[in-house]
């Protein structure tokens, strides 16, 4: 344990790692604050959930509509005219007239506008979901991705399973839960695509650098003849591996902790943690986000973080194995980067008529780059229900085998 801690100290004392961590964190915070102009508007969802409950039921929606009508009466008192919708009021309002209202009245108008938007979306959920034809959606996807032959059969078979899940989701009413308006704010994309993708790349850079740094440290400092001839001998590599994995966890925890900590301080998610990730409000693009399982926003976030941690540990393990082989941190870094890009692009080189086009997508780079679509049945060619666990299991086995082979090879290697 003492050796592992002393190895960790080497990373902690590295100015490059510390400098990059601070730079990345500062960048993440800048992106969050730059996109926080609508943070106050998001709070209306918390109020709605507080007043009407998390689930959208006919009775709660009716209550919501009555309250909006009351607000419209209040608007009538303010404007001196009866409106059916706040949007009608705003349409006939010029800037000069708007500025005559007090701040409190402006806030009231703005809140009413948001309430109407949420009510309108909630009222049209059934109508919008009734229009969704999963089978047709599957066919469209096949055309879009130009999938044919055996691959098309596989895709449609999985799509059939997804159709059942979609029905189950509708039956459960997972989609009828309040969440931030997806089309207006795209909070799922912002958090899980922009912020998470940014953090994933940063964590990967730091973890690959720190792992390669630790694994090759003795060779690069030319202290290998001293360290590997001590009592601990070549088993020092096991300590270095443990330290690399510990540092990978620490780096991921620090980057995620600092960035997500600030993110959730800026954007108040306190009332939506239990909302289903498949909520109709989480519909951002052409098709709603529909998870294979009944997951809440909180569970989805934890699952994504869990996946990311496992993937990062596997990346660290693979980097370590390569480092032992090449004994140079720069070459290791470029080999890992090249491998990452190659694996990520691999499906593009496979004929879209073969099932291999799906199989080669079961890679760690694809997994970490597809975070917003993880556990979703609406995530393109990697929409398979088993994608996450098969990818993680297969790559865990591969990483362990690679590490064992590298270590055994090193144990017998002449150290020059």
């Amino acid at each position, binding site marked *: 344990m*003492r*050796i592992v801690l*002393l190895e960790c100290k080497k990373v902690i*004392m590295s100015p490059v790692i510390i400098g990059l961590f601070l730079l990345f964190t500062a960048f993440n915070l800048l992106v969050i604050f730059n996109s926080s102009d609508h943070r106050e508007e998001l709070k209306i969802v918390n109020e709605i959930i507080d007043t009407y409950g998390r689930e959208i039921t006919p009775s709660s929606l009716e209550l919501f509509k009555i309250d909006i009508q009351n607000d419209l009466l209040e608007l009538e008192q303010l404007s001196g005219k009866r409106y059916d919708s706040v949007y009608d009021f705003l349409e006939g309002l010029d800037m000069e007239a708007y500025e005559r209202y007090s701040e409190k009245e402006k806030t009231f108008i703005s809140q009413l506008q948001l309430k109407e938007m949420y009510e309108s979306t909630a009222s049209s959920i059934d109508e919008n979901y009734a229009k969704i034809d999963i089978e047709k959606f599957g066919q469209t996807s096949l055309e879009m991705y130009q999938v044919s032959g055996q691959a098309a059969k596989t895709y449609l078979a999985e799509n059939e399973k997804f159709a059942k899940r979609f029905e189950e989701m509708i039956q459960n009413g997972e989609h009828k839960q309040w969440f931030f308006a997806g089309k207006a704010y795209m909070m799922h994309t912002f958090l899980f695509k922009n912020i998470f993708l940014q953090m994933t790349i940063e964590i990967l850079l730091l973890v690959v650098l720190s792992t390669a740094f630790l694994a090759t440290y*003795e060779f690069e*400092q*030319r*202290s*290998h*003849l*001293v*360290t*590997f*001839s*001590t*009592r*601990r*001998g070549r*088993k*020092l590599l096991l300590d270095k591996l443990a330290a690399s994995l510990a540092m990978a966890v620490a780096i991921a925890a620090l980057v995620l902790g600092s960035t997500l900590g600030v993110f959730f301080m800026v954007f108040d998610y306190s009332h939506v943690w239990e909302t289903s990730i498949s909520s109709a409000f989480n519909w951002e693009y052409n098709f709603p986000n529909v998870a294979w399982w009944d997951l809440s926003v909180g569970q989805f976030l934890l699952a994504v973080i869990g996946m990311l941690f496992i993937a990062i540990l596997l990346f660290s393990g693979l980097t370590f194995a390569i480092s032992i082989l090449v004994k140079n941190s720069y070459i290791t870094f470029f080999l890992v980067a090249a491998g990452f890009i190659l694996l990520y692009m691999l499906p593009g080189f496979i004929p879209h008529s073969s099932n291999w086009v799906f199989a080669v997508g079961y890679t760690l780079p694809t997994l970490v780059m597809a975070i917003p679509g993880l556990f979703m049945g609406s995530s393109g060619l990697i929409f398979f229900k088993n994608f996450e666990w098969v990818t993680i299991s297969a790559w865990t086995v591969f990483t362990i085998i690679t590490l064992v082979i590298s270590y055994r090879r090193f144990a*017998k290697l*002449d*150290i*020059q």
Partner: protein
Amino acid sequence: MIVVKDVCKRYGDFTALEDINLEFTNGLYGLLAPNGAGKTTLIKMLATLISPSSGEIQYNGENIVSMDQRYRELLGFLPQQFGFYKNYSPAQYLFYLAALKGISKQQARIKIDELLAKVALSDVKHKKMKKFSGGMIQRVGIAQALLNDPKILILDEPTAGLDPKERARFRHLLTDLARERLVIISTHIVSDIESIANEIIMIKNKRLLYKDSVEQICETLRDAVYETTVDFSQLDEFRKRFVLLSEKQEYGKMIVRFIHKGDKEEEWIPVHPQLEDVFLYEYQDEMVEGL
């Protein structure tokens, strides 16, 4: 006791060492050969850093590779190129190596203070090593080799970078250490070991040439080493005829020390052979090649 049994080391088609058989008990052994003769290969095998291609090395009858940690915990090793962490102080670096050597934190602190005093580095105990001279680094290297109070101390070119005063101090230290342990010093500098080694090991053409005391090795050139005075004009001719060990200019003439096995000439003065004479004689071809 360490026994090197029929050890060969090959790298592809190249043979570095062939059929080496040696025995080491307590005392100081000097491994003497020119650079590139295979000293470091043998030393690295003794430190378990590389494995013999054939044969084996035993410690008290057990293969050192099989002994693994049990062998290396008896070992103190200073490699020829002693690598160190530039941004660490000697205390920090030795503390790290103490952990690798299985020494407890408390013991390590006491031992580090003691060893840094021994190698006269107490004053710079907490200074970063990137500012150290070559001699200071080498002294840190010597200190780390002694951290675990080893029963087997292997030093590869330990005096590289040390000034004459440090060399003298180091020789005294080694004499003390060799009283109760096995010390093996690899060097190509005869004066480092001539006066302190119990036995000298010489390797030539990848094989063991000598393993004997300094006196016995010098005996091999008994009645073959002479000194004489020659004119400058005759020097080139003299060089062609004899193996010259040294040349010294005095009163406009050259005093030469040389080897001749056969009848002596009248003006030649027979002298007692030194280890350096044997070294120069045995490795004359390799040294010419080296030039």
